[in-house]
């Protein structure tokens, strides 16, 4: 392990009700990378990111983030992680602004008014930020959660299907923002099944299916490994997933 390796996953396995959902997975995410975890529904992507963010503990194997072991009560480590789950459940009886206040207090982050104003206008939440979250649409909740993460500017972003419910303007803003923070040395682990998004953002890709990592690396490397003439992620994805299924 070196300082450049932000996330190190070693032989991680996880079972739910006796069923293995992750089987000895290992991968590394380096500093400043946009690492995209791709896979079909039920592949184990969400379980992986839940383990990485410290929400779940693996049944076997180890997870290191910033060279420190991740576990449920590792509060210091969690302070530098921004985790967005695939389903945006929040306290529906709180107002949007109260939720932001709650998150900033939990993470002990100072309130940056300039950044708040910038983000709230980009996400177009000005009119509803003082309203209870129960009246928000799914997209609004997603925006609020994204805003609460971007506002505290963590070192590592773990984002599970971040574009669900977002409108085109926000999607465009989000993509630009992710590229910008990556260029500033922040690390992003993105979990999605949208190939288009991965194509546009990914510096490295990892394809997972049935709880196993099928292939991982730079697109160029993967394409040459698979003897493909193209670096198209769609081609790579279909080749890897259907190829393995047919065996």
């Amino acid at each position, binding site marked *: 392990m070196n300082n450049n390796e932000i996330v190190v996953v070693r032989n991680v396995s996880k079972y739910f*009700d006796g069923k293995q959902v992750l089987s000895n997975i290992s991968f590394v995410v380096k500093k400043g990378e946009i690492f995209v975890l791709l896979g079909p529904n039920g592949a184990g992507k969400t379980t992986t990111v*839940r383990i990485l*963010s*410290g*929400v*779940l*503990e693996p049944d076997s194997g180890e997870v290191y983030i910033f060279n420190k072991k991740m576990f*449920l*009560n590792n*509060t*210091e*480590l*969690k*302070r530098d*992680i921004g*985790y967005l*789950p695939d*389903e945006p*459940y*929040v*306290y529906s*009886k*709180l*107002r949007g*602004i*109260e939720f*932001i*206040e*709650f*998150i*900033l*207090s*939990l*993470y*002990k*982050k*100072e*309130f940056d*008014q300039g950044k*708040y*104003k910038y983000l709230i206008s980009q996400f177009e939440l000005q009119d509803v930020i*003082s*309203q*209870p979250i129960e*009246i928000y649409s799914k997209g609004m909740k997603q925006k609020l959660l994204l805003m609460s993460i971007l506002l505290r500017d963590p070192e590592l972003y773990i984002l599970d299907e971040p574009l669900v419910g977002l409108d085109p303007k926000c999607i465009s803003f989000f993509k630009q923002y992710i590229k910008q923070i990556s260029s500033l040395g922040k690390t992003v682990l993105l979990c999605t099944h949208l190939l288009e998004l991965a194509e546009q953002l990914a510096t490295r890709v990892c394809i997972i299916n049935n709880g196993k990592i099928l292939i991982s690396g730079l697109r160029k490397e993967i394409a040459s490994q698979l003897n493909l003439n193209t670096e198209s992620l769609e081609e790579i994805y279909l080749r890897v997933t259907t190829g393995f299924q047919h065996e």
Partner: protein
Amino acid sequence: MYNLIRLLFLQLKLFKNTIVFAQKFEKIRSVLLLLFVTGLFICSYIISYQVIIYISTFPVIGNIFIIRILALAFLTSFVMLIFSSLIVSFSTLYDENELHLLFSLPINVNSIFFFRVILTSFYSCWMILLVVIPFVVGFASVKNFSILGYFVLTTSVLFKVFIGTVIGCLVTIILSYLFPSRKIKNIVLILIVVLSSLFYSLLRISQPEKFLSPQNFPELVEYLDFLSRPVAKWLPSWWVTEVFRGLMITDYWIVGVNILKLFFVFCFTVIVLYILGVKLFYKSLTRSNTNLRKSCLKEKDLNISSLFRTILTKEIRLFLREPIQMIQFVVVIALTTIYIFNISRLPLEFKYIRVTVSFFNLGGIMFIITALVLRFVFVQPSMEYKIFWLLKSAPVNITHFFIIKFIVYIPMILIPGLIIVTLSNLVLKVDSILMSSSLVIILVSSAVLTLAGYSFGILFPKKEYKDIAQIETSFGGLIFILTSLCYIVILLSSIAEPVKRYLLGLKLSFFEIIFYIILFVMINFIYGFTPGYYAAKKFIKEY
């Protein structure tokens, strides 16, 4: 009509699939629950049967007394039905995601509306019927009703149930139409419950039982006349009582007239529901989602505070914005007032009675505490189940989080407990030793029950629910109540001997005192920390 039947069949299929696709643990859980309910049903029947046989032996007033009890039971259940329907219909008629799906389908609004009304009727009456049916069947079997008699009685009870639930639904729809803002609707709902609780408390404090004592009447004839008078004769509950009386004295004229009254009122309420309900339902549904109010809360009000204050603020905000929680709190206060009043009405001339009542009073208070814990603490993990990701991924030590939660909730449980024990012991005029030991016992048991309540909430979360009442009445809630009852019985048994010695004026030796203290600590430790240990394990692994 076709669509309504399809929707009802769909509901049945959903119910069937819940059983068919249940996991092994859930199946065992359902069987246990069914056994418990059946046991409760049989016990209620046997007790009712024995009590009625005993009352029937009273000369002259036996049958009149039976009718009086039935009338009161039907009246109480009728009022409870209206309230239950009122509260349930707020969530079944308005607050469900399923409505969005239903309205997107090519189904008539009338069908959707009546489908929701039928669901509301079912959800609001099943528990009341579970209590009332064995009671009524007990009465009917003592009076040897024929099969036709049972059929007529069942029909009249069903009419009463539907009238009650339809009234509840109508009130909800009218409220939602008049007050489209959810906040005002909640305030009105809370006001209704507060006023009803106040009315019930005043009714109890007026001591209606004194009218059942012949010595309060100058002549026996007047007493019999009082007993024979109808109880709220314009309400369907009295008509059902009259049906029962008609069957008892085989006067089919009385039976027929009252069945007809029930039938016509039932038809009338359904017609009102059809004409008024359907129109207002759709209007109130569309209006209730469009009333957005601008709040004056600004970013300058943001206050980044300590973990304790952050969680405390969040808990207070969520509690104050959840009307059902507030309603339950009001109901608990009303019941507690009546509980203390009931104690004050006991014959307390002798010390041994006061000490004995004070001892059993501890059990009663612990049960009230259990009810409070069930309502406010046990429900927490289920309510937060889908949001725990936020706390688990945040830089918060989970042990600290649980300790803060405990500190936040313990006053809500402890303060009412200490107030009740102090007030009831003052009413009982107990000495300082009993007073202080009662306070210590309630202090410790409040903490233990709070810990156990939260732990059971984690162990048996209800992940999907329509309102908080469903969490309380879930399998986990039942297990918590049963284990808490065992804890209360064991704890009381452990202190029974010292109380007996105290009553007899006998002293305990030093070793006996140590023994009873260790026993007390151990019982509390086991019940407080065993579920906590397993809950912590489950929380780390599964949440």
